[in-house]
């Protein structure tokens, strides 16, 4: 369902070429929960950008749900992200001073979905992500860190995406909140969602059932999580 074949990504900054990803290949099946772990500079963020269709690889092929992503243009990438991928970013990823509901509805903007249906789906997604109903009309700057991540998860769910991509989803949270957020991801996974976590913390990666470890742009190990 996700297939990467020999992905390369080279950044050219002036005369300096940086190889961020050097020949990565793997498959992720539907319903898996995978953690991609690696220290900073390992190329995991670049890989995440490619997997999230935020960026295209320099060479190699990436198939999402059987569709080739490598050669899409800007608008096609936008459409793909909207239809197939749910993002949970590290932090500060909500619209400022905007209600919880409107934040969750953001990916449905300009899709022709009626306002009523948007709100219905947003409410559903929020409940699914474990958000209390009395917070639905709170502004994004009145929420706690854990609540922000729940809203972000709900937003990632609203399009019923093929994969949910979480980039350091617990980066700014304390341990206790981190664990509840990760448990939320585990529950989503049990309900059948494919989840890819990007993290540098082993403790967070251990919530996943498969761990792909990356160093210097190549896969160091790819193993089932024994825990």
């Amino acid at each position: 369902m996700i297939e990467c074949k020999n992905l390369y990504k080279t950044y050219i900054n002036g005369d300096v070429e940086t190889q961020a990803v050097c020949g990565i290949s793997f498959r992720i099946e539907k319903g898996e929960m995978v953690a991609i772990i690696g220290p900073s500079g390992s190329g995991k963020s670049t890989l995440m950008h490619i997997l999230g269709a935020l960026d295209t690889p320099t060479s190699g092929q990436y198939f999402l749900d059987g569709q080739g992503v490598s050669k899409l243009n800007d608008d096609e990438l936008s459409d793909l992200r909207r239809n197939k991928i749910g993002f949970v970013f590290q932090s500060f990823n909500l619209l400022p001073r905007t209600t919880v509901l409107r934040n969750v509805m953001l990916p449905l903007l300009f899709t022709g979905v009626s306002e009523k249906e948007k709100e219905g789906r947003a409410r559903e997604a929020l409940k699914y992500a474990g958000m209390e109903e009395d917070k639905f009309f709170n502004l994004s700057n009145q929420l706690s860190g854990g609540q922000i991540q729940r809203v972000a998860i709900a937003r990632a769910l609203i399009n019923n995406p093929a994969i949910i991509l979480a980039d350091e989803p617990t980066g700014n949270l304390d341990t206790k909140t981190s664990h509840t957020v990760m448990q939320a991801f585990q529950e989503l996974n049990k309900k059948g969602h494919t989840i890819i976590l990007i993290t540098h913390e082993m403790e967070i990666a251990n919530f996943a059932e498969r761990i792909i470890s990356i160093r210097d742009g190549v896969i160091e190990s790819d193993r089932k999580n024994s825990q």
Partner: protein
Amino acid sequence: MLKDLLKEIFWSLSANKVRSGLTILGIVIGIASVITMVAIGQGAQSSIESSIQAIGSNLIMVSPGAQRTGAVSGGQGSAQTLTVGDADAIRIEIPNVKAIAPEVSRRYQINAKGSNTNTQVIGTTTDYLTVRNITIDFGTFVTEQQIKSSAKVAILGPTVRDDIFGVGANPIGQTIRIKNVDFEVIGVTLTKGGTGFANPDNSVYVPLTSAQHFLSGDTFVTSISVAASDQNSMVAVQQQINDLLLKQHNISDPLMADFSLVNQADIIATASSITGTFTLLLSSIAGISLLVGGIGIMNMMLTTVTERTREIGLRKAVGVRKIYINLQFLAEAVLLTFLGGGMGIFLGWMASLLVSKFVPQLATQVSISAILLAFGVSAAVGIIFGSYPARRAANLSPIEALRYE
């Protein structure tokens, strides 16, 4: 789609009320100040011009020259050199003269019914109405018949009427006494406005011959007003009058002329150059405020959009196509500039009206061109600097935009 766009603009602007408000305020002040400035400038110019026009149209004034007794000059206008004959000669011999009115004027004490006033008494002919743009409110002006018979009749300016007979009274048939001679009031002129020494509203008009017989006691006139038939012929008419009068007075050297000619166009030209400078000054001030306003709008828009680069990145990351992002920012900029523009025009208009209300001699004129200029510049600045940086941000990859600090 359109509904989505409108909703999104509404939410986005209302989520940032202070920022939106300040942007609008900047536009409002920029536009309102330009409109008010230009309105005041043009009002001042036209009020000066119209008060000159009120003297009459295409007017040439002939006044006597200086009276000389040996080396002592009595000053311009003191000589008694002009006569009704000069006026008749001008009327007969010079083409393109629409009307001509010789006059004898002097200040006298006027009594009637126990009240009295001191004012200008002008002895003149029927053409005076045409030459000086005066209208009769009720009654009649002096007729040819009355001039022939030196009738003892008088026409009052409205101010004189108010002073002697009371405000708004109808004095026709009443008698006023000028220099111990009784004159019957036969008409009142319409208020003309204007102030100062030779206020047409504060004058009494009598037939020319009556003024000469009963008041001045001689056959001279104090000035001759000539109205040329149109503006283009004024220079020629003035020259012809000059030549004719030199001949009439047997003067061979034009420098020795015992009369002088003043042309209304000269007065207007002088005044126009003053008001032109004035308008230029106000326009520069308006231009500077437009520039300052424009820069303010530009700064506001630029900071707003730069501040929102992450938001643009987020929108793009969750799958909003960049055309919708561009559209949204463009529409927001258009809405802000049009809201601000509309309010600015309204405010500028109101301010102009207020200036007119509290400073009545300055009848401001709101000009469409000033409105269009102010609005056009602000709207262009607002829309360009509101949408161009957003366009650039939407062209960034979402990762770069999200990372933007």
